[in-house]
């Protein structure tokens, strides 16, 4: 198959340096358009939003709320159900505090999976410890997938209040059948939170189609800036929920002893919002839409397939996760015989190849697959097959040093 090149590398200033950036799973690079949008926000329209009567404040509010509307549409959500947080982690903690503390009690269960990121584990551990609930894990099979049968049998016990799972694994690349999981969870009376931190950047995602009651993602992995995350929720649930943090902007009226809450989404946005960050993320999703999310996904699939093919040639490399590119996203974890992942990454760095080594914030998964750490290459629109060739050349060097 001919390589599917998007030819957008020149849009990313950082890549003018001679590097193969293969760490988009940790954070993506940003196109010029995103930097320009934030810069001109600060140069031309900076003001605090919502309340100001003067021109700058009106411009800032329009840019900020305009970005929210486009971001909501991009992900298939309603504007007023699209909440800005600091990052995906805060979006998940918001649910654990504001929904979880009220609806999960002693004897209840929260069901997650062995392939979750710490951000979708620790908030539930803290919740379960506090309220006396039980945290359970769906296991990950040899080929890096979940079993719907196991899901059914846990749900059948009737104690699960929430299923929280990742849409795409940041370690194995696994693309989970979230709509199928949500249907089964709902049938068993449980709600569903989907961690879309790795999915929204690389797949066409429609949060309503996923069936999720809560869907969390993060700006900096989706070509946007740091400092912003997104939580989409279902209307009835968000309306019934108490707020998470208290402060400016999230209130309706403040009396000495009690307060009433603002309408959605503001009820969940306490204090000054990440305004420039929303503008930047708005430009990022405009950029992605310009390419077309189907093309983004096709390119990701192409690079992933090429990576799997090239690594398969090296019999001293072992790949983790599904081998079928239809069932996985653009992150490939692997091991090199005799070499620790840290050393692999260090030697790759000398070749200008940026990969990640470690537990990838997924220690339970590391234990499940029997390693302490993996090396991981992960991709985005700016990557090409040449980057993978450079990775393979670096790995040959790793093998030369550590093989035998």
């Amino acid at each position, binding site marked *: 198959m001919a390589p599917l090149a998007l030819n957008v590398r020149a849009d990313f200033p950082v890549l003018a340096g001679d590097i193969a950036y293969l760490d988009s799973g940790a954070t993506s690079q940003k196109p010029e358009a995103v930097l320009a949008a934030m810069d001109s926000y600060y140069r031309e329209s900076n003001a605090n939003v*919502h*309340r*100001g*009567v003067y021109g700058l*404040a*009106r411009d800032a*509010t*329009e840019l900020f709320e305009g970005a929210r509307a486009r971001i909501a549409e991009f992900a298939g959500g309603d504007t007023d159900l699209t909440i800005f947080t600091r990052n995906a982690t805060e979006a998940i903690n918001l649910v654990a505090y504001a929904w979880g503390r009220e609806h999960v009690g002693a004897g209840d269960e929260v069901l997650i999976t062995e392939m979750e990121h710490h951000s979708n584990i620790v908030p539930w551990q803290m919740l379960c410890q506090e309220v006396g609930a039980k945290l359970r894990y769906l296991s990950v099979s040899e080929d890096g997938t979940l079993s719907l049968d196991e899901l059914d049998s846990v749900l059948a016990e009737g104690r699960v209040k929430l299923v929280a799972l990742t849409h795409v694994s940041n370690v194995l690349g696994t693309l989970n059948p979230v709509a199928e999981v949500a249907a089964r969870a709902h049938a068993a009376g449980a709600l569903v939170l989907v961690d879309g931190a790795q999915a929204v950047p690389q797949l066409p995602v429609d949060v309503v189609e996923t069936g999720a009651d809560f869907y969390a993602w993060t700006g900096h992995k989706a070509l946007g800036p740091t400092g912003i995350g997104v939580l989409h929720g279902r209307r009835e649930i968000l309306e019934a929920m108490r707020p998470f943090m208290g402060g400016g902007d999230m*209130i*309706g*009226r403040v009396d000495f002893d009690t307060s009433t809450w*603002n*309408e959605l989404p503001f009820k969940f946005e306490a204090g000054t919002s990440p305004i420039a960050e929303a503008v930047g993320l708005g430009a990022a999703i405009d950029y992605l839409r310009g390419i077309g999310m189907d093309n983004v996904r096709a390119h990701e699939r192409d690079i992933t397939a090429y990576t799997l093919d090239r690594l398969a040639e090296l019999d001293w490399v072992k790949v983790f996760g599904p081998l079928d590119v239809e069932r996985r996203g653009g992150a490939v974890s692997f091991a090199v015989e005799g070499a620790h992942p840290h050393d692999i990454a260090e030697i790759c760095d000398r070749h200008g190849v940026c990969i990640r080594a470690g537990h990838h914030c997924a220690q339970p998964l590391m234990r499940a697959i029997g390693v302490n750490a993996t090396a991981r290459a992960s991709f985005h629109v700016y990557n090409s097959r040449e980057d993978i060739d450079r990775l393979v050349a670096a790995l040959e060097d790793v093998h030369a040093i550590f093989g035998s």
Partner: protein
Amino acid sequence: MDELYRDYILDHYKEPRNFGELDPHDLEWHDHNPLCGDELGVHIVVADGKVADLRFHGTGCAISQAAASIASEELIGMPVEEVGGLSADWVFELLGIDISPTRRKCALLNLKVMRGATTGDASWPEVAAS
């Protein structure tokens, strides 16, 4: 002349019609604008299914007070069941001035309160996308 603070707006602001309280009354509602803290309440006397009389009370800016005053003259005599169907545009047209997005809630607080009193619906009147 100022495009927003036209004479009739200032006139209604400085000498609002139908402001005060009505006791006894048949319907009442009270609400506020979360952006600025302004408050507006209404008392309504109903007769023959119509708004026989009403009084607004509370404090607010020229736009919100003038809007309540101007609207009050139209509302008296209106069938109660028509009030819930009044749109944001109805208010904007009555005012006859260009309302920027930041000031819309000022202009609409009176309609919100009237709707609340007559239908119990506490939501903000929707503004047609412009």
